[in-house]
């Protein structure tokens, strides 16, 4: 395979002899194994992200409520101000979902 220096023919022969063991192969379903690991990893990451976001959301609601209460607002106003963004998100998501099949049909 390479132009071998004649001085190196002995070491070349020795290396060939001493390294002539079978070449291992990867399992036939190696690509599927990788995909399984990739999926497992993304599910785990998604779960961690969801827990993290939920925790952050709850904490910020709690802090906001305490701050608003310390400013003298009543609980009904605080509940309204806290829930309003959630209602907006729900409405926007609902509208997006409703428009999706309509676009698919057109």
């Amino acid at each position, binding site marked *: *395979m*390479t132009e071998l*220096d004649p001085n*190196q023919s*002995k*070491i*070349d*022969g*020795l*290396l*060939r*002899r*001493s*390294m*002539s*063991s079978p*070449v*291992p192969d*990867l*399992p036939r379903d*190696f*690509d*599927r*194994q*990788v*995909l399984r*690991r*990739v*999926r497992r*990893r993304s599910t785990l990451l998604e779960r961690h992200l969801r827990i993290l976001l939920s925790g952050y959301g709850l904490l910020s609601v709690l802090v906001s409520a305490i701050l608003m209460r310390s400013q003298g607002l009543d609980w009904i106003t605080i509940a309204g101000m806290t829930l309003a963004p959630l209602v907006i998100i729900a409405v926007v998501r609902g509208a997006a979902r409703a428009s999706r099949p309509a676009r698919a049909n057109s």
Partner: protein
Amino acid sequence: MALAQLETDAELVARTQAGDEHSFAELVRRHQAMVFRLALSILGREFVPEAEDVTQDVFVKVYGALPSFRGESELRSWIYRITFNQALNLKERVRFRAPHADESVLQDVASHAPGPERQLANKQRDRALAECMQTLPEVYQSALRLYYWLDTSVSQIALLLEVPENTAKSYLHRARQLLEGMLKQRGYSCD
């Protein structure tokens, strides 16, 4: 599947980035053999299961990093670079751990010497050779294992190690030269 064979790596990367897992599976099939080979060449014959783990880790890492892959370098080179670093890190970690089988034990299989004395001498020389190899720079060790054990052509060695073909040739030449010198120093001949 047949279509995937015709697609370039860049097209498969774009599809994977858009969420198509089948395209990623095709990328794995395309590059898994060379990645495994490179990992084996760095870790050595006594760490075959570890080389398989490295190969899996590399593709999991590639999948995680693909969204930010802009294609500025070739995908293949990028994967090989990840493999080289991953295998080298693992090698550092397992350096002081007992291997599954000593490299010299595997070499006994290839020994066809006639008498027990000759066999013992060959075994000792092979052990010395394996020890000397461990002291060579990583790229030399890798080039030697790729060429002599994994039957890889010089052009493929150059691709895997990301060097020009002549450099790969010189790695092999220099590695042989160093090994011969070290064996002579220890009192072994190469005959």
